[in-house]
């Protein structure tokens, strides 16, 4: 008991300013927490047949979320077939979870991804195994956000490695091309790259040729993410000691061998945590496809608010959306922090010390 009192005094009342801050926080909590609790839980409506019960109540209308959850999660995907995007989402999340485990960083992981993505494609499009065909204009909701982020990262990453290597190349034309690309993309907002893909790209292609809207947005996201990932990879490349390259050359390895077998394995290992952080930013950025009219998770939330029978519950709807994004992003940032905390993972650190 005295230990507790001592802790309270040391952590909350160690000095006059600290004591004042504690009292101010407690006062604000006493003033704002009960009404917030009332709104969010006590007076909230959790289930209701229509919006009338919600409008009569004083509290939050979580019934909006339970009423619209199918649309928010799956968009306009055919209702009886919605187990397919659900299964695809679960599969995708499982693949990400598997990739996070160090024990799974084996030769079969890329193979598992290829098989998983093929299965997801089969599930989503259908047309095989008796599944009815669903064109990708009808895909929407959470699975679209997850797909945009997954495919975006998968295609941006190799491209980013090439850009980073190009930026450090001794060939001036190659170097300037890569620097120009990276700095241009990083200097403009994502929305302008998305506009470019949605309104400019059709103009740049021969008349008659057209690329699907979803593919165009995906392309824009890949181009955008690769510039940011390239800078992270470059940071990793710079951290590899020069002697490693010299040793590889002394062994008679050519440039591709030096990079693939000596430099990149060390550089990428060191940049895993910042890569995950960049990916979190990218995952959040996929929500911008809403502006060019794609049906991602945030977009289905927004559209579900346009139902006149259920209008006016934006605060609840966006809090729910925030919670879903938070779960994904927080899990990833906790993972990235755990990587940073494990120095054993940094195999190159041992090399650097010698």
């Amino acid at each position, binding site marked *: 008991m005295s230990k507790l009192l001592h802790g309270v005094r040391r952590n909350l009342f160690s000095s006059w300013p600290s004591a004042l801050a504690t009292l101010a926080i407690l006062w604000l909590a006493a003033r704002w927490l009960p009404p917030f609790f009332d709104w969010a839980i006590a007076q909230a409506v959790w289930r209701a047949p229509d919006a009338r019960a919600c409008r009569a109540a004083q509290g939050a209308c979580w019934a909006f979320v339970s009423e619209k959850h199918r649309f928010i999660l799956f968009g306009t995907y055919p209702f009886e077939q919605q187990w397919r995007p659900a299964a695809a989402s679960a599969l995708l999340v499982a693949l990400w979870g598997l990739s996070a485990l160090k024990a799974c960083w084996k030769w079969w992981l890329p193979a598992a991804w290829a098989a998983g993505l093929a299965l997801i494609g089969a599930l989503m499009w259908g047309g095989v195994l008796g599944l009815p065909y669903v064109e990708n204009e009808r895909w929407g909701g959470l699975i679209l956000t997850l797909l945009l982020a997954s495919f975006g990262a998968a295609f941006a990453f190799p491209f980013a490695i090439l850009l980073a290597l190009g930026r450090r190349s001794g060939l001036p034309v190659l170097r300037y091309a890569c620097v120009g690309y990276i700095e241009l993309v990083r200097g403009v907002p994502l929305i302008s790259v998305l506009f470019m893909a949605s*309104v400019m790209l059709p103009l740049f292609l021969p008349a008659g040729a057209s690329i699907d809207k979803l593919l165009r947005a995906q392309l824009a996201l890949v181009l955008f993410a690769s510039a940011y990932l390239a800078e992270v990879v470059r940071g990793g490349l710079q951290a590899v000691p020069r002697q490693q390259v010299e040793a590889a050359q002394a062994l008679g390895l050519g440039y591709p061998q030096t990079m693939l077998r000596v430099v990149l394995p060390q550089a990428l290992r060191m940049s895993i945590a910042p890569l995950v952080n960049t990916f979190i930013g990218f995952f959040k950025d996929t929500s911008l496809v809403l502006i060019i009219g794609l049906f991602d998770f945030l977009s289905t939330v927004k559209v579900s608010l346009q139902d006149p029978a259920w209008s006016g519950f934006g*605060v609840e709807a966006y809090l729910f959306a925030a919670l879903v994004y938070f779960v994904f992003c927080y899990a990833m940032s906790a993972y990235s922090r755990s990587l940073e905390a494990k120095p054993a993972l940094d195999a190159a650190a041992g090399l650097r010390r010698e």
Partner: protein
Amino acid sequence: MKLRGLALQAALAAVLALLFWWFYSNAAANLAARGIASGFAFLRREAGFEIGETTFAAYSAADSYLRALAIGLANTIRVAALGVLLATALGAAAGLARLAPNWLLGKLAGAYVEAVRNVPLLVQLFFWYALITEGLPAPAEALHPLPGVFLSNRGIHFPLPGDLPVLSGFNFAGGGALTPEFAALLAGLTVYTAGFVAEIVRAGVLSVPRGQLEAARSLGLGRRDELRYVVLPQALRLMVPPMTSQYLNLAKNSSLAVAIGYPDLVSIANTTMNQTGQAIEGVAVIMAVFLTISLSISALMNWYNRRAALRGLAP
């Protein structure tokens, strides 16, 4: 070996040139087929759309596209400049609070930082906009937290010297006003960016070696003097580069205004592109303006960085 390098570069240059030429010829053919004249001549034409709010200059639908875009740019600069100031202040406060010896304050600041960093800015903007337009009462029952300040679903009204806002009809007249769109965008940008600024401030302060703090304390400096004369001058130097990229992010993120209907540059350019079909020119304007803003902020921060670094190195 040298020859191979040269050949490789020549091939790359040729491929890039071909690609650009192919894009160019396709675009020229497509524009001709659609009857759109390329070039910036359309900027002189009458815009024909209204703009909800303007900064420093008047505008009417009879003005040119050029003027409309200039108004958009002024609106972008207004929200970005205010956002940078407020985000720096809030972020510094949250970052220092996270380091405070007070457990409650530290946890509170930590929860804030985690919450805003892990939710997309666009969700936060929609949330603030919904909170203002749906959560706040009508002007007649406006919240009245401070004398002369009114919060309602028509925005925030506050007093200016000698000019108080008064309820007239369905809205307030007089005083200063922030529209719901502007208030939501400013709140979103500030609260979001401050989460990142807080982490930079915290890392900067933590980077100051312990010996420096002990030296300050042995000189008998109080906590405030210690922070002001010992910690911050050293931490600031480390904080400048990441702060620069946060300011750049804030300026770029202000383009999300288009999603909640604040008439910034991107939103006006978007309307212009939809009306005229001048997509290439519209995107080029957006990119040119943001590249200019990015380069200016970088130049400004580099200048500050040189000054801060020099002061430390001077004997």
